[in-house]
């Protein structure tokens, strides 16, 4: 992946959401994108030109557009109509984004469009985030990776984020190997990135 000094950037056509450009590259801001925060903090899975990604909770497609700059194909799943309209516009300009309007917790709705992917990236504001991840493992190749952006506040605002994380981690370890866990401070509060790999 491309770094200019310590600024993460991605190659591709700019002007997706008013992002800055630097030497012709699009700046990928860790304060806006949780995935960029994870990379900036030294974690994450290297995005390479041959990998295929399933992106759950693509929203307006800002982070998805950066991911698409690096990888072969992005399957971008989003459920809400308003952000979907923006995502469709992003997908129109990037030929490797497949926009799917569906509920990430109901993979049977979009399974007929899915091939096996190397990376599942999940960023959804739902209380049952771990369960959603589990249901989507059917699309992940053995040895492939899952990056789960755990929004502890979406799971339960009343509980201590660390406790929520411990429970999520235990849930994921039923079927995955947890490789790395990082809090996204100072970029995002009460968010943790959990990087897992699927047993081969």
């Amino acid at each position: 992946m491309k770094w200019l000094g310590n600024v993460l950037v991605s190659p591709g056509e700019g002007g997706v959401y008013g992002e800055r450009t630097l030497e012709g590259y699009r700046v990928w801001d860790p304060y806006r994108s949780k995935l960029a925060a994870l990379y900036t903090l030294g974690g994450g899975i290297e995005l390479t030109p041959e990998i295929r990604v399933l992106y759950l909770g693509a929203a307006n497609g800002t982070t998805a557009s950066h991911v698409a700059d690096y990888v072969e194909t992005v399957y971008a799943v989003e459920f809400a109509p308003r952000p979907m309209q923006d995502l469709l516009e992003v997908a129109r300009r990037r030929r490797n984004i497949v926009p799917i309007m569906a509920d990430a917790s109901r993979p049977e709705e979009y399974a007929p469009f899915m091939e096996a992917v190397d990376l599942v990236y999940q960023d959804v504001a739902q209380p049952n985030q771990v369960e959603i991840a589990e249901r989507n493992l059917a699309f992940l190749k053995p040895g492939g990776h899952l990056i789960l952006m755990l929004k502890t506040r979406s799971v339960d605002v009343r509980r201590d984020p660390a406790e929520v994380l411990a429970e999520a981690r235990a849930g994921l370890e039923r079927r995955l190997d947890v490789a790395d866990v990082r809090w996204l401070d100072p970029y995002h509060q009460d968010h943790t990135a959990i990087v897992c790999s699927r047993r081969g």
Partner: protein
Amino acid sequence: MLQRYWFGDVDEEGCRAAGTDPAALAERAAALRTGMDSFVPIDWEVARDCGVVRTREEYVDLLRSVCTTLARKKIALSYQGRDVELLQMVRMLDELDNVINLLQERAAEWYQVTNPSFSRKYRSLPAKKMLGIIRKGARGGLSDAAEEIDRLAGTRSRLMREVSARADEVMPNTSALIGGLVAARLLSKAGGLPALARMPGSTIQVLGSERALFSHLRGGTPPPKHGIIFQHRRVHNAPKPVRGRVARVLAAKLAIAARLDYYRGEAVPEFLKDAQARIDEAGVEAS
């Protein structure tokens, strides 16, 4: 094992392609349901061998146009509900309230500076009267602004009637219980009729008092008795000792009303009669 994919059906014997027209493929794909237990992810080369596409690029392109067509349809469908526009109408109404209040306050501040005799006494006048005084007394920008605020107020009251009428039509049962305006505000807070219809009464009761609710859940403070439904006269006119009970009973009936509105879409007189009686009964203080 037969696998049904967006481009066709595949089993041990081979593959039956479903054509290459994105619109037709989208229509077919919309009806597909997959059991996740037996699901095998697509190998795009099957689509190539099937004759649907020739290259990986073509595969992704065709898939994209099918998915985009499907998404467009789903978006259109989700905006089609009569409640969707009502939602925007209420939100506009509430924003207008905010804006009018802000502007009015500023106009009064300004006028007070130019006119020392404009004291607190005038401030407690009804807004319309106060604006009239400012309009006549002031000159230039301030007078123009006052006129503009007046016009906004007119827009607001017309919109309010419109909201009320639309709510009566979209959610007849709920509106009959608490009035169109408050019903519409509940709808806006819930995020739509389907969402409101799926809420329990206890949630409806405290919609709009999230701050008090979460401060209660975090510990310490007493729970809120009512949120938006406080705006309904039977709640805010109720004597304090029974206000919580009225709010609770009303909210419970609203939950039923919202479901009737969503799933039946018409007023149900028998239900309304019983519900109204029950709510009135809750407001009677025990002697």
